[in-house]
C-alpha cells in the first residue's frame, strides 16, 4: 500500500506531517543493525600487538637509531594522530634504550627526535609524553621477537654507539659532526665498514650499494606500515561510528560520545574548534528551526524516486513502526512538532510546493533548494546533515573554490552525473553550493542552464524510455542545495524564481542557550543561563559566534563566565552595515537603557562611563557605514529639527563649526588624495550625538536638499549657457555668466517688456515703430525669443526661450510685469521677419556678386510676367526642346550617334511639339494639367466684356 494512502486513512496526522522526519529517525535507528555489535571489536592492545608483530621484524636487528629515525619519519608522513601506536613503538624503543644503558649524549640525539623534526607540535608532544609515560608496552616485548633473537647484538651496537658518539671531537680518525635542533653537538666517529659487515652479513645482498642498514628496502617497509595504518584507520573509524550509533540507540545523546572521544585525544581537543567539535551530526541535534529543517528534508525526499529509484510504497510499514517508536520514546519532540500547526500561511504554501507533482523525469518541481539567512545560524550544517541522512554523498562547492564559468560547469556536471565507484561511499551525490550570493552571474547562469536542461527527445515519450534517458544522463537528476546570506543579490534573481526558497529564521535563544550550557559543561566552564542569554543577545543568536566566544574565553583560561565578561569582550560582534537611517537615528537618540539605569542621578553625572561607551558606539557605527558624505548630509539636514534646548544658539554654532571643519577636511582629502585623513570624518557623527541627541525618537528625513539644489543649479546653468552660446561676439565679449546673473538679466527682462499699444503693428506711430525695432534688436542681440507653448490646461502662451526668466526668478517676490499674449505674439512675428531680413542681408554680404544679378532679374521679371501661363508653357517647351544634348556614355564620353533614324523622327516630333507649344501659348485659353480642380480650363475675362 502506498505510504500516503495509508496515512490519509489515519486520523492521527502526526505521521502524515512528519513522515520524513520519522523516516530519518527510523533509518538512524536501523543503521547499526546490519553490523552485529559483537563482531566489530574495539581496537585494543592486541591489535597493535598484531600490527607490530606482522612486519618483517626478523631483520630488525639493525641499528636502533635507524629504527627511531624511521619511526619519526613515519610520524611525519602520517597525519592522523594515532597516539596509541606511537606510544607503543616509542615505548619499545625507549625501553630498549634503557635496557642498553646508552649514555646520555646518545640518548639525547636519538630520543628527542632531532634527526627529523616532527611535522607538528602536537605530534611531537604525543611521542614525547608517550615515551615518558611508557605504560602499556609491557607485553609488547614479546612481539619483538627479532630483538630478543639476538640479545647481544644491540648491546654490541650500543657499545659501539657509545664508542662512536662523542661529545668532543676525537683525537684521531675521521669524524662527522651532528648538531641537533637544540644546539647540542656530538661527534660521530667514522669507522671502517668491516665491523658492520661482519656483524650482519645478511643484509648486504639486499642493498645495491646504498646505505646498508635495513634488511628490506625502506620503500617496502614504508608501504607495509602505510598499509597497517590504513587498516587501523578503518578499524578506528568503524569503532567510532559504531560507538556513536550505539549512543543514539541508547538515547545516550551525542555528548556522551563526544566525551568519550574527548577523553581519548586530549591534545586534539585543544586545537579543534568547538564549532566543529560540537557541530550536530544528527537531525535531532539541529538547533535551527524545525519547520525549516523538515521542509528541506521533505524536499530532499522528493528526489528519492529519481535518485534511488524506490517508490514510496516500500516504506510505509517501517514508517509506521517507527512512528510508534518515536511517539513513545520522544514525546517532547512530538509536542514540538505539533506546534507547527500554528505556521499557517507560510507553511501551507511551502507544504503545497512539497506536495506538488513530480515532473516527467520524476523530479520535484523545484530542482534547487535555496537556504537564505544571516550568518551563523547553521545553514551549511543543516544542509550537510540532511543530505547525509537522506542517503547522499555531499559534494560542496563554496566561495573558496574557483567559480569561474568553465570550472563551475565542470564541477556541477561531475557532481550531478558521476558517482564514486571505489571506496565505501557508493552513495549518490548531493551538490551543496555554499555562499552562492558571491558567485558571478555567469556561474549562476550555468547552474540555471543545468536545471533547465531538457532531454532532447524525451519530451513526448515520457517515462517509457527511461532507460535511454538514464543512458544519456543529460537531465539533472541529483538534488542541489544552494546556500546564501543575501537572497536578493541581483545575480540570484533568475535563480530565485526556480528555487524552493527557505528563509532561515532566527535560532531560538532558549535552545541556543541550552546547547551552550551543555557545551560549557562538557568543557568544564561555569556559565549560568543569564550569562549565556546575554551572549546570545550580543551575537544576535549567531551560533557560531557564541561558541567561538566561549572557546575564546576558555582558551584565555577563564573557567567561569559572567555577564560582565561577556559584555566587555569585543568578540562575537559582527561588522555589519546597519544602514544610514539607523546611524542617524542612533546619533540623534539617546540610548534608552542608559537613561533608565542612570535614573535620577543623570544630572550630576552626565554619563562618564556611559559617555565613553556612547562615544565608541557612535564612532563604530559611523566608521563602519563608510558613506561619510551622505552621513554628514543627513546630519546637516536633520539637526535643526531636533528638539534641543538651545536659546543662545551655541550648540547650533558648535555643530556648524564641526560641519564646516568636516567639509574642509573633505576638500583636503579630495583635493590632495590624502585619504589618511578619512579617519577623522566619523567624529562628526559623534559630536552631533553629544550635541543634539535627545531621548525622543527623532523624525528623520532623507537628505534631498543638496541634490535638489545641485539639480536646479545645473538647470539654471544650462539655460544661461544656452543663452550665451548664441549671443553675437560683440556683446558676448562683454558679458560673462556671472555678470549676466548678478547684473544684467533681471533688468534686461524688464527692458524687453515695454508698454505696447495693443494694436496692429502696422498702425504704430514712428516712435512706437522705433521702439519696437529696438526691442527686437535687443532680444536678438541677447539671443532671446518667444516660443509658443501649450499649458496643460490647453491655453497657449508664449514663453521666453531659453528659459532664463526662471533662472532669475525668486519665490516670494512680487512677479515682474509681463507682456500680454498679443504683444508677445506681435513681437515674435516681427522677430521672425527681422531674422529673415538679417539672414538675407547676410547672404547678400557673403556673395555680393550674385546679389545685383538677382536684383536685376527681379526687376526684369515683372515685364514678361503679365502672362504667367505663357511663361510656364515656355519653360515646358524649353524643357522638352533642351533634350537635344550630346549623348554621353557611362563615363561621360561623347557617344557617336549610331542610330540615325530615331533621331530624325525625334527631331520631327520635337518640331511638332514646339509648334504646338507656341500655338497654345499664344491663345487666350489655357489649362493646367493635373490641377485637380474642376475649372481647370481658364480664360481671361475682362470687365469691359461683361459690361
Amino acid at each position: 500500500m502506498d505510504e500516503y494512502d495509508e496515512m490519509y486513512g489515519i486520523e492521527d496526522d502526526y505521521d502524515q506531517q512528519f513522515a520524513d522526519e520519522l523516516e530519518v529517525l527510523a533509518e538512524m535507528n536501523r543503521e547499526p543493525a546490519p553490523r552485529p555489535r559483537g563482531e566489530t571489536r574495539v581496537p585494543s592492545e592486541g591489535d597493535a600487538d598484531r600490527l607490530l608483530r606482522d612486519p618483517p621484524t626478523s631483520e630488525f636487528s639493525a641499528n636502533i637509531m635507524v629504527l627511531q629515525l624511521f619511526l619519526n619519519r613515519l610520524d611525519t608522513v602520517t597525519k592522523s594522530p594515532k597516539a596509541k601506536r606511537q606510544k607503543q613503538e616509542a615505548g619499545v624503543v625507549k625501553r630498549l634504550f634503557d635496557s642498553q644503558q646508552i649514555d646520555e649524549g646518545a640518548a639525547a640525539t636519538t630520543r628527542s627526535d632531532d634527526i627529523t623534526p616532527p611535522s607538528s607540535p602536537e605530534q611531537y608532544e604525543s611521542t614525547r609524553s608517550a615515551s615518558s609515560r611508557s605504560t602499556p608496552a609491557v607485553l609488547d616485548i614479546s612481539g619483538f621477537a627479532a630483538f630478543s633473537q639476538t640479545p647481544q647484538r644491540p648491546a654490541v651496537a650500543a657499545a659501539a654507539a657509545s664508542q662512536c658518539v662523542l661529545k668532543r671531537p676525537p683525537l684521531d680518525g675521521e669524524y662527522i659532526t651532528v648538531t641537533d635542533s637544540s644546539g647540542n653537538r656530538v661527534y660521530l666517529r667514522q669507522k671502517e665498514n668491516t665491523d658492520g659487515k661482519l656483524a650482519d652479513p645478511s643484509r648486504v645482498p639486499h642493498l645495491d650499494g646504498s646505505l646498508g642498514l635495513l634488511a628490506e628496502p625502506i620503500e617496502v617497509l614504508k608501504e607495509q606500515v602505510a598499509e597497517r595504518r590504513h587498516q587501523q584507520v578503518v578499524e578506528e573509524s568503524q569503532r567510532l561510528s559504531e560507538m556513536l550509533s550505539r549512543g543514539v540507540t541508547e538515547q545516550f545523546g551525542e555528548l556522551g560520545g563526544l566525551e568519550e572521544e574527548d577523553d581519548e585525544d586530549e591534545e586534539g581537543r585543544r586545537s579543534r574548534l568547538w564549532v566543529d567539535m560540537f557541530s550536530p551530526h544528527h537531525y535531532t541535534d539541529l538547533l535551527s528551526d524545525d519547520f525549516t529543517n523538515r521542509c528541506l528534508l521533505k524536499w530532499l525526499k522528493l528526489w528519492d524516486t529519481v535518485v534511488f529509484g524506490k517508490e514510496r510504497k516500500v516504506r510505509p510499514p517501517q514508517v509506521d513502526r517507527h512512528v510508534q517508536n518515536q511517539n513513545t520514546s520522544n514525546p517532547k519532540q512530538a509536542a514540538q512538532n505539533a506546534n507547527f500547526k500554528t505556521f499557517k500561511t507560510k507553511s501551507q504554501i511551502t507544504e503545497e510546493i512539497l506536495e506538488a507533482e513530480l515532473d516527467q523525469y520524476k523530479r520535484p518541481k523545484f530542482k534547487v533548494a535555496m537556504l537564505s539567512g544571516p550568518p551563523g545560524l547553521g545553514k551549511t550544517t543543516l544542509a550537510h546533515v540532511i543530505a547525509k541522512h537522506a542517503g547522499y554523498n555531499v559534494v560542496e562547492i563554496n566561495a573558496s573554490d574557483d567559480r569561474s564559468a568553465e570550472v563551475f560547469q565542470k564541477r556541477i556536471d561531475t557532481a550531478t552525473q558521476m558517482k564514486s565507484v571505489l571506496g565505501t561511499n557508493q552513495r549518490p551525490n548531493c551538490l551543496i553550493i555554499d555562499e552562492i550570493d558571491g558567485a558571478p552571474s555567469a556561474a549562476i547562469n550555468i547552474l540555471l542552464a543545468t536545471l533547465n536542461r531538457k532531454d532532447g527527445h524525451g519530451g513526448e515519450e515520457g517515462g517509457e524510455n527511461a532507460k535511454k534517458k538514464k543512458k544519456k544522463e543529460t537531465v539533472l537528476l541529483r538534488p542541489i542545495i544552494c546556500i546564501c546570506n543575501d537572497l536578493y543579490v541581483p545575480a540570484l534573481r533568475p535563480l530565485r524564481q526556480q528555487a524552493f526558497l527557505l528563509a532561515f529564521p532566527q535560532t531560538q535563544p532558549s535552545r541556543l542557550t541550552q546547547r551552550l550550557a551543555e557545551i560549557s559543561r562538557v568543557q568544564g566552564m561555569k556559565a549560568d543561563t543569564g550569562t549565556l542569554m546575554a551572549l546570545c543577545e550580543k551575537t544576535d543568536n549567531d551560533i557560531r559566534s557564541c561558541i567561538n566566544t566561549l572557546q575564546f574565553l576558555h582558551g584565555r583560561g577563564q573557567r567561569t563566565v559572567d555577564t560582565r565578561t561577556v559584555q566587555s569582550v569585543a568578540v562575537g560582534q559582527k561588522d555589519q552595515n546597519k544602514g544610514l537611517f539607523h546611524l542617524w537615528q542612533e546619533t540623534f537618540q539617546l540610548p534608552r537603557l542608559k537613561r533608565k539605569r542612570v535614573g535620577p542621578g543623570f544630572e550630576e553625572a552626565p554619563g562618564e562611563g556611559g559617555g565613553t561607551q556612547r562615544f565608541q558606539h557612535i564612532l563604530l557605527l559611523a566608521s563602519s557605514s563608510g558613506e561619510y558624505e551622505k552621513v554628514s548630509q543627513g546630519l546637516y539636514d536633520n539637526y535643526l529639527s531636533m528638539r534641543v534646548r538651545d536659546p543662545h544658539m551655541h550648540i547650533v554654532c558648535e555643530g556648524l563649526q564641526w560641519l564646516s571643519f568636516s567639509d574642509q577636511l573633505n576638500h583636503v582629502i579630495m583635493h590632495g588624495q590624502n585619504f589618511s585623513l578619512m579617519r577623522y570624518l566619523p567624529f562628526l557623527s559623534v559630536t552631533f550625538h553629544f550635541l543634539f541627541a535627545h531621548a525622543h525618537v527623532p523624525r528623520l528625513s532623507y537628505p534631498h536638499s543638496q541634490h535638489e539644489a545641485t539639480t536646479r543649479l545645473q538647470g539654471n546653468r544650462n539655460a544661461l549657457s544656452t543663452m550665451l552660446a548664441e549671443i553675437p561676439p560683440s556683446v558676448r565679449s562683454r558679458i560673462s555668466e556671472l555678470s549676466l546673473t548678478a547684473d544684467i538679466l533681471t533688468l534686461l527682462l524688464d527692458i524687453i517688456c515695454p508698454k505696447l499699444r495693443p494694436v496692429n503693428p502696422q498702425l504704430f506711430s514712428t516712435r512706437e515703430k522705433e521702439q519696437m525695432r529696438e526691442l527686437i534688436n535687443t532680444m536678438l542681440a541677447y539671443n532671446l525669443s518667444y516660443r509658443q507653448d501649450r499649458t496643460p490646461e490647453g491655453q497657449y502662451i508664449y514663453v521666453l526661450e531659453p528659459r532664463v526668466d526662471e533662472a532669475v526668478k525668486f519665490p516670494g517676490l512680487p512677479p515682474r510685469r509681463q507682456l500680454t499674449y498679443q504683444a508677445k505674439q506681435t513681437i515674435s512675428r516681427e522677430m521672425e521677419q527681422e531674422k529673415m531680413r538679417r539672414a538675407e542681408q547676410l547672404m547678400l554680404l557673403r556673395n555680393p556678386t550674385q546679389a545685383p544679378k538677382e536684383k536685376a532679374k527681379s526687376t526684369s521679371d515683372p515685364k514678361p510676367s503679365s502672362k504667367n501661363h505663357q511663361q510656364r508653357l515656355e519653360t515646358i517647351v524649353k524643357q522638352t526642346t533642351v533634350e537635344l544634348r550630346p549623348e554621353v556614355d557611362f563615363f561621360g564620353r561623347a557617344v557617336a550617334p549610331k542610330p540615325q533614324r530615331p533621331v530624325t523622327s525625334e527631331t520631327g516630333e520635337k518640331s511638332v511639339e514646339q509648334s504646338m507649344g507656341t500655338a497654345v501659348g499664344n491663345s487666350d485659353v489655357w489649362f493646367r494639367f493635373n490641377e485637380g480642380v474642376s475649372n481647370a480650363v481658364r480664360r481671361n475675362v475682362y470687365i469691359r466684356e461683361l459690361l
Partner: protein
Amino acid sequence: MSLWVDKYRPASLGKLDYHKDQAVQLKNLVQCGDFPHLLVYGPSGAGKKTRIMCLLRELYGAGVEKLRIEHQTIVAPSKKKIEINTIASNYHLEVNPSDAGNQDRVVIQELIKTVAQSQQIQSSTQREFKVVLLTEVDRLTKDAQHALRRTMEKYMATCRLILCCNSTSKVIGPIRSRCLAVRVPLPSTEEVCSVLSAVCKKEGLVLPPELARQVSERSGRNLRKALLMCEACRVQQYPFSADQEVPETDWEVYLRETANAIVSQQSPQRLMEVRARLYELLTHCIPAEIIMKGLVAELLSNCDGQLKTEVTHIAAYYEHRLQLGNKAIYHLEAFTAKFMAIYKKFMEDGLDGLVF
C-alpha cells in the same frame, strides 16, 4: 546692439568718460612700444573690459573689433574632451578658462601655446605680438596659474597676456610680479551721473539729476548696472519723474529680505528658513562670496558700532572657511548661526542694561 550699455560704449581710449589720466597712461604705454603683460583688476562694472578693448584698438586699429566666436575642442591627457568658446579677432584671442572648470590647466597649456607659438608674418606693418586676453583669472585653479607662469616668460616675443579679474588676491604672486597691474576703480557717483545724463541726452531724453543720483546709488556705482537700471526706468515710465522707483535685481531684494529675517528672530527654526533661502540664492548661480558679502552688508546696517566689528570679524573668518571648503551652504549657515548667537546675546545684554 540696442541696449544703452552696448550702444554707447566708448570704443577708443580718448573717448573714455572717467579715469582719463589712466587712459592717457595706457596710450603712452602703447606708443612707447614696450608693451608689458597686463593685469587689469577692479570691481565688476567699473569698465575693465571696455578699457582693455580700447587699448587693443589703440594697439591694432579698428580690425580688433571684427570679432568671431570659435568653438574649440581640446583633448585633455585623460582623453576627456573639453569644449570651450573663444572670442577672437585677427589680433587677439579672448578666453575664459574657468569655463573649463577643473581642466582649465589644459586650456591654458594648449590654447595659449598654440597662439603664442605662431609668429606674425608681416611684422613691419603689424605689432610683432598677439594678445591673449584671459578673463576671470581669479577663478583659475592654482595648477592653471602655475602653468601660466612659464608660458608668460617663454613666449614673450610673440604674445602678450592681458589678465582680467576682480581681485588680485587669488592670483598667485609669480603672475602678479610678471604683470603690470592696472587697477580700474569704480567711477564716482558724479561720474556715473554724468555718464547717465550724457547717454540720456544722446537718446533724446531728459534725465532729472535726482533720478540719476538715485540710480547711481542703487547700482552701487556699477556703471553697467546703472545704465541698465536707467533703461529699465525708461521702459517703466517715460517722462522721468525725480522720485521714480528704480528697479532692482531680484536677488538683491531677496538677500535683503533674508537679512531682515535673520535680524528679526534668532532660533533654529528661523535658521532652517534662512537655509532654504540661502539654497535658493545659490541655485540661482549667485556665487557664495557675493552672497556672503551682500549678507554682511545688509546685516551690518542693522548693527551698532561695537557689534559691527565683531560681525565683520566673524564674516571674515567664515568667508575664509568658505574658500577652503567645498560646500558653501555649510559655511553660509555657520555664519548665519554665529551672527544669530552674537546678535541675540547683544540684544539680551542690552535689555538687561535697560532693566537694571
